[in-house]
C-alpha cells in the first residue's frame, strides 16, 4: 500500500459497497460470537445447583429440616428412608440435615478465604506485573516459595500450630483455618494477575494513558484492572473449588473447629463405616463433588462470557 497514487484519492466516499460474500461471512462470524457468548445448559445447571445449595445453607434454620445435632433412636447407620432421606450416621444423626448444615461451614470458610486471597493476590499480582524489575523479582521469589510448599501441609501446620485442636476456642480455630486457606489462594491468584497485567500493561492504550500523564494508580485501576478481572474471577472460582476440598481435608484431619458440622467432619466420621454404611460418606462427598464441578464449569464460562471481541473487522 505504498503506491503514490493509492494515498491520493481525496474524496473517496465514506460508503463502501460490501460484496455479498463478505457480508455473509460477517453474519456467520457474528452468529458464532453469539453462540460462544450464549451460556449452555451446563452453565445454568451449575449455577442452579450453587444457588440452591447456598440458599438452603443460608436459610437452613427456616427449612423443615431435622436438628443436625439431634440423635434419633434406633436408626444408627440405617440407609436412606422416608424419614431420613440420606439415612443416619453411626450415632443416629440425620445425614440429610447435616449435609445441608455442613455446606454452611464449607462454603463460608472457602468463600471468605477466596475473597481474601483474591484481594491480596490481585493487588500483589497487579503491583508485581505493573512495576516489574526489582519489586517483581522479589515478589515472584516469595510466590515461588509459597507455591513450593504443599498447600495442605502448610494449612495443617499453620492451624495446628496457632490454633491447636482442644486448646484454642472454636472461633479461633475457624479464623485460623480461614486464614490458612487464604494464604493458599494468594500465590495462584497473584500469578494469574501478574501474567495478565504484564500482557495488558504493554498495550498501546496504556502507553496512550501514560502520554497523558496519568498516574500509575489510575492506570492500574482504570486501564489494567478491568481487563484482567475476567481471568481473575475465572481462577477464583476454580480456587474456591480447591479450597472447599482443602477445608474438608483440614476437618478430616481434625484441625480447625471440628465440634460443628461440615462435609469434611462427616466424611471423617464415616470413613471407618464405609463398608457397612456407605451413605455416611457418599452424600457429603457427592454434594462436595457437585459443588466443585459446578464451580469449575462456571469458572470456565466466566472467561468466555467476558471475552470482548477486540477487533471489529
Amino acid at each position, binding site marked *: *500500500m*505504498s*503506491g*503514490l*497514487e*493509492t*494515498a*491520493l*484519492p*481525496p474524496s*473517496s466516499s*465514506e460508503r*463502501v459497497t460490501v460484496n455479498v460474500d463478505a457480508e455473509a461471512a460477517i453474519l456467520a462470524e457474528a452468529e458464532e460470537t453469539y453462540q460462544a457468548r450464549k451460556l449452555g445448559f451446563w452453565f445454568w445447571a451449575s449455577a442452579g445447583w450453587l444457588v440452591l445449595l447456598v440458599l438452603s445453607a443460608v436459610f437452613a434454620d427456616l427449612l423443615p429440616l431435622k436438628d443436625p445435632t439431634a440423635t434419633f433412636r434406633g436408626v444408627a447407620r440405617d440407609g436412606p428412608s422416608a424419614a431420613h432421606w440420606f439415612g443416619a450416621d453411626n450415632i443416629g444423626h440425620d445425614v440429610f440435615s447435616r449435609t445441608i448444615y455442613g455446606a454452611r461451614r464449607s462454603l463460608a470458610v472457602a468463600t471468605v478465604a477466596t475473597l481474601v486471597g483474591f484481594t491480596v493476590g490481585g493487588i500483589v499480582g497487579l503491583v508485581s506485573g505493573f512495576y516489574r*524489575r*526489582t519489586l517483581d523479582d522479589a515478589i515472584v521469589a516469595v510466590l515461588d516459595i509459597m507455591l513450593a510448599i504443599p498447600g495442605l501441609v502448610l494449612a495443617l501446620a499453620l492451624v495446628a500450630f496457632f490454633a491447636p485442636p482442644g486448646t484454642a476456642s472454636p472461633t479461633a480455630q475457624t479464623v485460623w483455618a480461614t486464614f490458612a486457606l487464604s494464604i493458599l489462594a494468594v500465590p495462584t491468584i497473584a500469578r494469574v494477575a501478574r501474567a495478565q497485567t504484564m500482557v495488558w500493561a504493554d*498495550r*498501546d*492504550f496504556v*502507553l*496512550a*494513558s*501514560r*502520554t*497523558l*500523564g*496519568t498516574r500509575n494508580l*489510575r492506570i492500574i485501576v*482504570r*486501564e489494567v484492572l*478491568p*481487563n484482567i478481572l475476567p481471568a481473575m474471577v475465572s481462577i477464583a472460582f476454580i480456587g474456591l473449588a480447591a479450597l472447599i476440598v482443602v477445608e474438608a481435608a483440614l476437618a478430616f484431619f481434625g484441625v480447625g473447629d471440628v465440634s460443628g458440622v461440615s462435609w469434611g467432619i462427616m466424611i471423617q466420621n464415616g470413613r471407618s463405616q464405609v463398608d457397612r454404611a456407605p451413605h455416611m460418606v457418599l452424600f457429603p462427598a457427592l454434594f462436595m463433588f457437585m459443588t466443585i464441578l459446578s464451580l469449575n464449569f462456571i469458572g470456565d464460562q466466566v472467561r468466555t462470557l467476558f471475552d*470482548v*471481541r*477486540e*477487533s*471489529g*473487522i
Partner: protein
Amino acid sequence: MAGSGTAHLREGQEDLLLQVEHIVVEFPVGRFGTVHAVSDVSFDLADGETLGIVGESGCGKSTTAKAIMRVPPPTSGRIQLDGVDLATLGAEQMRDVRSRLQMIFQDAISSLNPRRRIRDVVAEPLVIRWLESHRRSPLIRLWERYVPRMLRLWRHPLLRRVGVPLLIAFFVGLALWIAGSAFGTEQPDGTRDGGIVQAAGSVVMIASLVGLAPIVALYAVTAAVWVVLTVLLPVASLPRTYRIWRERKEFWQGAEVQVRQVLEDVGIDADTAMERRPHEFSGGQAQRISIARALILDPKVIICDEPVSALDVSVQAQVLNLLEELKAKYGLSLIFIAHDLAVVKNIADRVVVMYLGKVCEVGQPDELFAHPRHPYTEILMTAIPVIDPAVDPRVARTIPGEPPSPVFPPPGCRFCTRCPNASERCAEEEPQIREIAPGQFVACHHPVAAPEDRVADAPVLIG
C-alpha cells in the same frame, strides 16, 4: 548515512515550536548489552509545519517519538518545547506540558481500552487535567517524591555491585565452614576441628555479614517508610476525593459538550458512538476516535506514530485528509512518522530520513524525493512500487539483507555495511550532516550525484 550533526537545524528562526537536539535513547539488554535505538538525532519543528520521519522498521522512528513524549524519556539530549527542556523536567512539571503535546498510535484499536466506552476514552485527557487541578494532600506529594527516589536508591548499581559479592562471600564462607567441620581432624570428644579452613570460613562469614548489614537495613527502613506512607495515603486523600466527587456532575456536563464537539470534528457521529466500546468500530473509525482524544486538550503538537499504516488504502486517504483539515482548524503542528513514502510526500513540509538510529537526510519532500542525495534515500525511493506494466521490478536497485543489530551498530557510518557507495572511509569516520543543496541536508561521504551532474540516460528512479 547515519550521521550526526546539527547543520540542518534552523537556529534562530522565530517560529520554532519544538527543537530536538542530540537525543539518544538506549535500552539495556541482557547483562551487558545496550540497544542503541536512537543515537544523536536532532531535528526541529516550526509552528504549523508537518515534519515527516521515514525509515524502515527498527530505525528508531517510534522510539524517537516516544522519547519526546517521555515514555520512556531519552537517555540524553534536549527536547525544547516553547523554550522548556522536556528532557530534564520533573514528572510533575511534565504533567503540565503534556496537554500541549499529544500522540496517536499505529494500532488504533489497541490504543483504545476495550473495556471503556468511547465517551470515557475521549474524555480521559479532560478527566486527568481535572483531577490534577485539585491540590493533592502533602502526604501524597511526599509519597510521590519519596517513592521514585526510593526506587532509584533500591536499584542503585552500587548496592548490587557491593551486595552481590558480599552475598557470594557469605556463602563461600559458609561452605568453608561446613567443609572444615565435616572433614576436619576428629577430636577425642567426637567433634571435628576444622582448623584453619573453618576459622577462615567464620571470618569470611562475619566480615560479609558486617558489610551486608547496612544494605539490609537500608532496604528495610525504606520499605517500612513506604508501607507506612501507603497505608496512610487513602485516609490522607479523603478530603480531596470528596471535593472531586462533589464536582463530578458539573465536570461531566462540560466534558460531554467537549467530547461531542471533538467527535463531530473528526467525523464520528457522537450520538451513536459515545456509549459504544472500541471493538464496535472499524480501524479507520477507531483512528478518528484516537485523534479526537489527542485533540480534546487543544494541543500544539501531535505526534502521529504511523497513524495510517494499519488502515485500508481508501481509509488512509480519509484519515490523512482529516489530519490536514484538523491541522488548519486547530492550528496544529504534526510530527508524522511513517514508512510509507507516498504518504509522507503528500502530507509533510519537511522530511527526515532515518536509518538505524541516525539521521541520513533532511529536506523538502518534493526535492528530496525527486533528487535523493543519500544512497539510502535513493534506495528507499526505488522500493516504492511503480504501477506501470512496462517497469520490470527485477531491475529495481535493492539492497539485500536487513539493518545490522542496533546492539552492535557498525562503526563510522551506520549504513556502510549495505551501502553501494561505501568506501573504507565510511567504516571509520562518521559523516556529519551538511547542506548539499539549498534546504537539503545529507550525512554522507559519497552522496548521490546531483541531477544536473547525472549521465543523461540514467534511469529516473522516482515518479
